[in-house]
């Protein structure tokens, strides 16, 4: 049966009434009305649903709410605001790194977790870090450039 579960999302605690074995993605989208994380495959294959869990990029479409516990969830909404966008968001806008944009949540969230660990990556390292995130519009060149820009690095 649904139970009240407390989730810490974007710095605030929220009580959501969900099935404990339901996936975090639906709690974020349907209970908390967030639009950053997207349903893409439900199979952890495309990355559109990526959020940060204690700073690690995870696939919220296959992460049960019951597994979140006290961990801190950060979504695209929690990175920055229109008034104060995160440097990655600024870089994606500056590079015009989106077409349909449906995958971009995952690209930014995966890049955020990656840059936190590897602040000065090479282009190849960025490509490797994003390799499990799928983009169908073919915006890859700009996405890589945006991550390079955010990292302040233009190393080959």
């Amino acid at each position: 049966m649904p139970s009240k579960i407390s989730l810490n999302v974007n710095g605030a605690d929220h009580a959501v009434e969900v099935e404990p074995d339901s996936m975090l993605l639906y709690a974020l989208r349907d209970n908390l009305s967030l639009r950053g994380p997207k349903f893409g495959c439900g199979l952890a294959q495309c990355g559109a649903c990526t959020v940060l869990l204690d700073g690690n990029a995870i696939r919220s479409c296959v992460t049960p709410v019951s597994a979140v516990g006290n961990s801190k969830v950060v979504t695209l909404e929690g990175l920055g605001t229109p008034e104060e966008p995160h440097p990655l968001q600024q870089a994606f806008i500056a590079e015009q790194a989106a077409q349909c944009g449906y995958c971009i949540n995952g690209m930014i969230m995966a890049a955020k977790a990656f840059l936190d660990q590897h602040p000065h990556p090479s282009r190849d390292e960025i490509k490797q870090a994003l390799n499990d995130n799928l983009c169908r519009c073919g915006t890859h060149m700009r996405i890589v450039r945006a991550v390079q820009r955010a990292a302040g690095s233009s190393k080959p």
Partner: protein
Amino acid sequence: MTTSFNDMRSATDLALSRRRFLQASGGLVVAFRLFGPQPAWAKDAARTSVASPPAGKLYAWLAVHPDNTATLFTGKVETGTGVQTALAQIAAEELDFPFDRLDVVMGTTSETVDQGPSYGSMTVRYAGPQIRNAAAAGRAALLNLASEHFKVSPNQLTAKEGTIVVLGSPGRTITYGKLVDGKRLEMEIGASGERFAMKVAPNAHPKDPSTYTIIGKPLPRKDIPGKILATFSYVQDVRVDGMLHGRVVRPYGVGATLQSVDETGLKSIPGFVQVVRRDNFLGVVAETEWAAIQAAAKLGSTLHPSGPDAGQAKWSNWNGLPKMDQIWDTVRETAEGRNISVASKGSAALAFGYTKRTLKATYKTPFQMHGSIGPSCAIADVKGDHATLWSGTQMPHEARRDMAKLLDIPLDNIELRWFEASGAYGRNGLEHAIADAAIMSQAVKRPVRVQWMRWDEHGWEPKGPPIVQDLRGAVDADGRVIAWQHHMWIPTISDTHLIAAALTGNPNATGETGTGGVPVITYAYTFENADVAVHDEGRVALLTAWLRSPAQFETTFAMESFIDELAAAAGKDPLAFRLAHLEDARAIAVLKAAAEAYGWEERPAGAKADRSGKPAHGRGIAWVNRDDSRVATIADITVDPGSGRIKVSRVVVAHDCGLVVNPDGLKNQIEGNIIQSLSRTLLEEVTFDSARVTSLDWQGYPILRFEDIPDSIEIVLVNNRPEYPSYGAGEPSTNPTAAVISNAIFDAVGVRLRQTPFRPERVKAAMSS
């Protein structure tokens, strides 16, 4: 934080229909708001109709608000290609209005004129002039208003950035917003014809293109910040009051019939509402997405069900699909459609008779899919003989008409509210999802949101069809092509029948199986004898529909690879060989521009082919004329003989789509076309067994990943000049890619690949044979 971003309007709220979204600062609320105070006409005349506005009225295209912002209304929609921004630039240019104060409302059928679907690289080309004229008529209408206001003749006035000034009297100015004073722009501007062919404001005087200041600028796209900041609402994000969640349960086999449904255990799923069954249409409806997913899974909607009776819904054991490895024979044999001659010159048959050096080749391409990252999604609220639909379809006005037929509801009682979806690159499942949602809403009498699961999308979205092409060419002793024959066999690329209609036993309620029509081959060489024909075969095996640059991606692969075969047979440089057989000045210009940017040195293809077993380098070239745009592409690749893997290092594209509205938006499109077409060239093939599609996820249907993107994509714009109209750019640069790569592989290792995709195992097999 629990505020939802509902689309709250009911049909009677349409007095507020001239609206736009405002993203509230927290990023959580999408509210509807008018620019500035609510205009008087909206308060007075509460519109109860959901009919589209009349194209001959200025208000159908433009609204000017008291705070001196403005709205452009267009029946065209954004699909990720940037047309919203391009159309806004065109309107702002003619209206003499600041681009960043001009908002664009797209697609919603009650607020926009039907300008035809947003497909075929035709939005800027055909809707652009319609909007240009409407905006020019708008500017003239505003000058007339100002003329009355200032009591001077209109030719004593000038308009700049949304303000009208009396010439020679710098103090006498008025903004468009003040001038219009919240009124609806009732002026008659005139319109005739329909959709793509519609002529708007025939008496308008648009600007001389050489004076443009907004068109031609690489302005940032209007939609991108919201998409990056999570303040943008895709159709997948829309929530409606009282809404339930639906999921479809498709037949196990494509043509299977539903034998029985065992509902045991469904009621114990918290939030489960009901099963919706009509003939072979099966769906579940629940209060939550999770409950709908769980219920659908019990009935058999899972990634890899083991058979037609694996779930609690039992399907007949249908096995009517042809064999996958013989699909091209099936296509040839079907021959239900019509034959279309594309070119017929001299007598190819005679020429082949007296020429010794002739070559023959057959090219094959598989079923491919659109592969949207976000599966198709729609919301429907069907109440009696009224319906409201929320969709990201590329053809909102057609979808509305289709749903009137499917639901047998008067057209005037249906509104489609358009929100952007995940990119579709053609006709994917978006239109079908509307029908699914409508049938479920009809059954439960509440709004229902349906989102397809990944396997629904991969399995049931209409596919790009498999194509087989026979080519034959003859070269004389001087190395000139004297005969050319190119025949293709292709299932329909435009079958618009709705899946839900077929499943509910009403397959022809709406839609048609189209033939021909689209420029699937643009033959442009000057061979003395030529015979080019399309054999369009109707429906074969799976539902098919247009996929980016429909069929021309495949025909360009065959045509531009085979010309390379002839060039190699004649011992000629592939660029020089093409140029020797072309008169089309724009084709010659893009080929030369690409070659110059690349640094092309003349030599026959394959002259340096390396079969030593070490990684081998090659270059390939190809071009296309797609609906009057010309594109030439050159690429460098490396073939790793050990793995069979192709690495694309450098891509150079010369692109002529005439006058470019937004150069950065265009480059974004070209990069996307190159990468997506590389993916289709190297990796993509829909697999199926006798019952169903078996490539149901991204493992079964891999697409290009970051590790395989080129090191660089260089773009040269050709004929970007005001004397040219703007042709299409959403698709053309997809076309040359497969031929470029095939030609580069031949150049590298001397092996000719004539069947896509060029997966490593296929490359290795070709090299060892």
